[in-house]
C-alpha cells in the first residue's frame, strides 16, 4: 500500500495543479511588445512623458526587424508606462530594454524619481544603460537616423559599449547609478547623448558627461573633459592622448593610444587638513606621428613622455579647479575614498563635505610610459 501512495501523490499534485493553477504568468513571446529602449521627457499635461521604442518583428520568409516608438504621458512613470498599453494593445515587456534616456529638463528635476520605478519593478533590469540627452528632447534621439541598424536602442547600447576605446563618455547603468547616489562623498555622473547633424541626417552621438549633484542635473562636461574625469575615476580602458610637441622649431603632433592606466587616490589627513594625492600611471603606445623621427631616440622619447605627463597633469588640474569652482560636486569620489580609507576622519568632515571639497587641495602626479610604437619603428616621413 505504501508503494502505491507515492505515484498517487504525484498524480494528485498533477491533477490539483492542473485544476487550480491557470497559467497566470504564461505568456507567449509573440503576444508582447518587446521594449528596446525608453526615453523620458517632461510632459505637457502630466509630469512624465515617456517614449518607448518597440521592436516590431515581421513574419515571413526572411524576418526583418523594425522599430516604432510610442509616446504617452502619466502622473508617475508606472502610470505612463501602463498607459502605453492603451495604444500598443500588447503588454510591454521590459526585460530586454537596453537604454533609458532622460531629457535635460526631467533630469534637472531629479533623476531618482524617474528611475525609482525602473529600479523597483521586477520585470525591469538593473543593467540598463542610462543616458541624458543634452541638446534635444529625449524622444528625438529615437527619431534620429541610425547609421547601421534599425533599432536605435541597440545601436546606442553598442555605442556605449565601444566607448571604452574612446573614453569620452563614462559607463553607467542603473545599478551603478544607484550605488553611487547612495554613497556618501561622491556625486554621480551620467553619459550624455546628442544628435549630430550630418549630410542632412541626424545621428545620435554619445559623448560627454552630465553631472548630477544631490540627485539633480547641474551641468555638463564635454568629451575631452570627460576623458580627464575618467582618468581621475580610474575608469580608463582605452582612448587617445594627443600630444603637441614643439621641438627644434618643428611642430609635431603625436597620437598616443592608451593601453593601461592606474590611478591611485590617497587621501592624506592630519587633523583638519585634508589633502588628496592623485597618482596617475599610464602606459601608452605611439600610434601616429606626423613629423620627423626625433622622438625615437632615448632623449626624444623621454621628452615626449615628460611633455605628455605635463599636459595630462595640467588638464586634470584645470578640470578639478573647474569642478570645484563651478559645480562644487565631488564627481571624482574623493570623499568616498576618504571614507573608505579613514572612516574616523570622514565622520568629522562628512557632514559638510561640500565645504571641504570646495577648497580641497589635490596633488596631481602623472607618469606616462611609452610601451611601443605600434607596427613601425620609424617615422614614415623622412627627416628634412
Amino acid at each position, binding site marked *: 500500500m505504501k508503494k502505491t501512495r507515492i505515484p498517487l501523490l504525484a498524480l494528485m*499534485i498533477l491533477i490539483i495543479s492542473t485544476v487550480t493553477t491557470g497559467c*497566470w504568468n504564461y505568456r507567449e513571446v509573440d503576444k508582447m511588445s518587446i521594449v528596446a529602449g525608453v526615453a523620458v521627457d517632461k510632459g505637457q499635461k502630466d509630469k512624465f512623458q515617456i517614449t518607448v521604442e518597440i521592436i516590431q518583428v515581421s513574419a515571413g520568409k526572411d524576418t526583418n526587424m523594425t522599430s516604432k516608438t510610442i509616446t504617452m504621458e502619466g502622473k508617475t512613470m508606472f502610470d505612463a508606462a501602463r498607459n502605453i498599453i492603451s495604444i500598443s494593445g500588447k503588454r510591454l515587456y521590459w526585460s530586454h530594454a537596453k537604454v533609458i534616456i532622460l531629457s535635460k529638463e526631467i533630469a534637472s528635476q531629479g533623476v531618482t524619481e524617474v528611475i525609482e520605478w525602473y529600479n523597483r519593478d521586477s520585470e525591469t533590469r*538593473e543593467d540598463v544603460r542610462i543616458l541624458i540627452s543634452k541638446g534635444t528632447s529625449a524622444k528625438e534621439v529615437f527619431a534620429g537616423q541610425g547609421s547601421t541598424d534599425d533599432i536605435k536602442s541597440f545601436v546606442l547600447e553598442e555605442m556605449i559599449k565601444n566607448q571604452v576605446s574612446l573614453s569620452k563618455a563614462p559607463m553607467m547603468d542603473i545599478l551603478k547609478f544607484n*550605488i553611487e547616489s547612495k554613497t556618501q562623498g561622491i556625486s554621480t555622473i551620467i553619459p550624455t547623448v546628442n544628435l549630430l547633424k550630418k549630410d542632412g541626417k541626424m545621428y545620435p552621438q554619445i559623448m560627454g558627461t552630465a553631472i548630477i549633484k544631490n540627485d539633480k542635473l547641474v551641468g555638463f562636461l564635454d568629451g575631452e573633459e570627460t576623458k580627464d574625469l575618467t582618468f581621475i575615476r580610474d575608469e580608463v580602458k582605452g582612448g587617445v592622448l594627443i600630444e603637441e610637441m614643439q621641438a627644434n622649431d618643428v611642430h609635431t603632433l603625436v597620437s598616443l593610444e592608451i593601453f593601461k592606466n592606474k590611478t591611485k587616490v590617497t587621501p592624506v589627513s592630519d587633523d583638519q587638513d585634508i589633502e588628496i594625492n592623485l597618482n596617475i600611471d599610464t602606459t601608452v603606445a605611439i600610434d601616429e606621428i606626423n613629423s620627423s623621427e626625433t622622438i625615437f631616440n632615448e632623449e626624444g622619447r623621454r621628452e615626449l613622455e615628460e611633455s605628455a605627463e605635463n599636459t595630462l597633469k595640467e588638464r586634470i588640474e584645470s578640470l578639478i579647479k573647474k569642478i570645484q569652482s563651478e559645480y562644487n560636486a565631488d564627481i571624482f569620489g574623493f570623499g568616498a575614498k576618504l571614507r573608505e580609507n*579613514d572612516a574616523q576622519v570622514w565622520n568629522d568632515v562628512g557632514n559638510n563635505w561640500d565645504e571641504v571639497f570646495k577648497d580641497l587641495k589635490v596633488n596631481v602626479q602623472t607618469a606616462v610610459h611609452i610601451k611601443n610604437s605600434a607596427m613601425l619603428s620609424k617615422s614614415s616621413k623622412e627627416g628634412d
Partner: protein
Amino acid sequence: MQKEQLSDKEAIFLIIVFVIGSSLITGVGGEADNDAWIAVVVGLIMVMPMILVFSRILSLFQGKDLFDILTLTLGKRISKIVAIMYIWYAFHLGALVLRNFGEFINIVAMPETPMFVPLFCLGLLCIVAVRLGIEVMGRTTAYFLPILFLIIVIVQLLAIPQLHLNYLKPILGSGLIPVLKGGFSALSFPFAETVLFIGVFGSLKTKKSPFKVYYWGILISALIIIITTIRNLAVLGNMRDSFYFPSYAAVGSIKIGNFIERIEVSVAFIFVFGVFIKSSICLLVACKGIGKMFNLKDYRSIVIQTGLLMIYLSYIIYDNSMMMKYWAFKVYPFYAFPFQVIIPITIWIFAEYKARKNKMNCFSSKCP
C-alpha cells in the same frame, strides 16, 4: 521495518543545505551593512559552543532523537510541554521558510500567480520527501549538493569582473555594535536553527561523533555564506540592503561577453532545493514529535495532514513582504532564542546529570 540510516557524509550535506538553503538568498546579518560578512563570522563563532551542546546531548543518548531525549531527561510531564514547544517551533520554522519561497516567487518571477500555488506545490514536495524518509532525503542531497557546489563556484567565478572590492570598505566603519547585532541575527537565522537536527540524527549511522558532523556541516556552509555575502556586497555595494533577495540581484548583474548573462536562474535552483530540504526537515521533526507524543506506530501516517497545515500556516502568516522582513530581522532572533539556546542548555545539564547517575548505577555505559 528496518531502521533508517544516515551516513556521516549525507548528514553533513543535509546540514549544509539546511543552513545555506534560504539564508543564501535572503542574506544574512543585514544590520551590519557592509560588514555583514564579519557578522557571519561572528555568528559562526557564537554558534560553536551551541554545537558542542547539541552534539554532547546526541552522544549522551546515542540513537535517540530529540523527543526520546526529552522524556528521558525531563520526566514525563515537563517533557510533554517542551516537546509541544519544539513541535511548534519546527512547524513554524517550516512555514516561515515556505513563505520565504512564496515571496521569492511572487516578487521575482511570477507576480500574477497567487502565492498559494507555489507554496502548495513545494509543500506537497516536502510531504512526498518526508514520507519517503530521511534516508532518501539524505541520498538525494548527496546527489544534489555537488551540483549546487558547482553552480556556486561557477557563478562566483563569473562574478569576478563585477566585483568592486572597495565597496567592502571601510571595514568596521560604524563600530562593533552593528556587527555584533548582525552576528546575533546570523546565529539565530541560519546557524542555530540546526538545533532541529537533534530530532533527526537519531538515525545517524556512525555513532562516533555527532560533533564532527555538526562542525563540518556548519563550517562549510558558513564559508559558502561568507563568500556569497562578500560577493553580494562587492557587486551591489550599499544597495544590498535594499533588495529582498540580494543574491538574485547580484547574479543578475553578471555579464560575460554577450551571451553569458541573465543567469539568475542558477540561484533559483539553489534556492528551490535549499528551501525544499529545510522545510522537509522541519516537517519531519514536527511529524516525528507528534508521532512520539501520541505513541503512533509510524510518523508517516500524519505527514500529509501536518504538511497541509504547514502550507496553510505559511499562507496566512504574513500579510505582506514588508512584514516578513521586519519579522525576520527584528522579531525572529528573540523568538528563536529560547529554542536554540536556553532549552538545549537546560536539556544538556539534565542529561549530564542523568548520565552521571546511570554510570554510578550500572557499570556498562551502554545502560539505557
